[in-house]
């Protein structure tokens, strides 16, 4: 015993390894099953709109069009769009069949992009109806693609916030719509969005 203790004191390897052994023996609480992946739910919801170019261009077009139309459309569209989109998402969650979802999403980019390009100024109710109609298709796609096992609330919050942020990006870009060159730039962006929509429509049809 005495020799063991002596060797314990003198062996440098022991001095290094002993704390490691002690640490390994003092197991702490694992807490391996907490939180249920809720952070992942929010992130997957947040990534859903921004990871698909078809959603991104349509959301930015809504913001651009709102900026072109000015008040009150600039705030009516971003307030109304999430609500109608959520209604579409609810239809998707409930499994209500909505034919032509991808067609509607591609058409939204074409129509909204063309509205920006042509600088259309319909009455506010017509603009809100058009945006709301297309919002149903976007929401339906989000709702029907909710991954199994995710938190519905956090996924919903994620994609509603991401959609709102895309609108804000569109409105911010639309702020250049003041001078002649700024107005041309916004209309050019609308044309690019409409062309992107044509590409997505081609993919859907083919």
């Amino acid at each position, binding site marked *: 015993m005495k020799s*063991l203790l002596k060797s314990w004191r003198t062996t440098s390897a022991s001095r290094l390894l002993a704390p490691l052994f002690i640490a390994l*023996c003092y197991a702490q609480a694992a807490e391996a099953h907490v939180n249920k992946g809720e952070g992942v739910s929010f992130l997957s919801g947040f990534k859903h709109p921004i990871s698909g170019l078809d959603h991104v261009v349509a959301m930015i077009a809504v913001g651009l069009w709102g900026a072109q139309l000015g008040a009150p459309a600039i705030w009516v569209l*971003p307030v109304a769009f999430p*609500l109608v989109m959520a209604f579409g998402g609810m*239809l998707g969650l*409930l499994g209500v069949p909505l034919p032509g979802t991808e067609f509607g999403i591609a058409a939204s980019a074409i129509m909204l992009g063309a509205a920006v390009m042509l600088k259309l100024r319909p009455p506010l109710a017509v603009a809100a109806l058009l945006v709301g109609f297309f919002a149903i298709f976007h929401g339906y796609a989000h709702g029907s693609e*909710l991954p199994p096992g995710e938190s519905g609330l*956090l996924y919903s919050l994620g994609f509603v916030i991401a959609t709102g942020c895309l609108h804000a990006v569109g409105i911010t870009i639309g702020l250049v719509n003041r001078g002649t060159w700024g107005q041309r730039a916004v209309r050019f962006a609308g044309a690019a969005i409409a062309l992107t929509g044509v590409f997505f429509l081609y993919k859907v049809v083919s």
Partner: protein
Amino acid sequence: MMRRFARFLFPNLFASAICLLLPREAAAHLPTIGLGPVYDGVLHLFLSPEDLIPVIALALLSGQRGAPFGRRSLWLLPLAWFAGGMLGMFTGSGRGATLTFVSFLLLGGLVAAKARISLAVLTVAAMLLGCFHGYLNGAGINRYDDGTYALLGLSLAVFVVVALFASLVVPLREQWAQVAVRVAGSWIAASGLLMLGWAVRTAS
């Protein structure tokens, strides 16, 4: 060589054996966070979006209507939350948790519409919200332990959240800032609509 190996091995085995004689509680599924019941309650609110977001929505709604409305929510909501929690702690079963979408939908919709509600309507809304969510919280709290302290922490956290958000909104005068509040309400209502779909889907 063998002697050097033995000199290395035996002392460590001895130390390890002593350590193994000092067992610790594994607690692999530890339900508490070790901060005490009051802080458990405080953290519960900030870690539970289904409770936190309706509180924010009511605070935004109060702030939109002005300082008297904010003051009414500031005191009434925490008290109703505590009362509902006590009721839930002793009688609750936790049923009805799926109905939290109603809070999202109604309060978010009112904020998005910038509804000009009366003080009486706000009072009823605050009482209903506090009692309902507090009841659900209370039903999940251990009544024989430190549940009252946890409810106290929850109510204090509700007080702080209402104070922060209502006082943020009350002085807003710029149009863009008021629109931002309405957009936030729209997002909350949209989440409520999706929660409704989620609840129906889960139930079916």
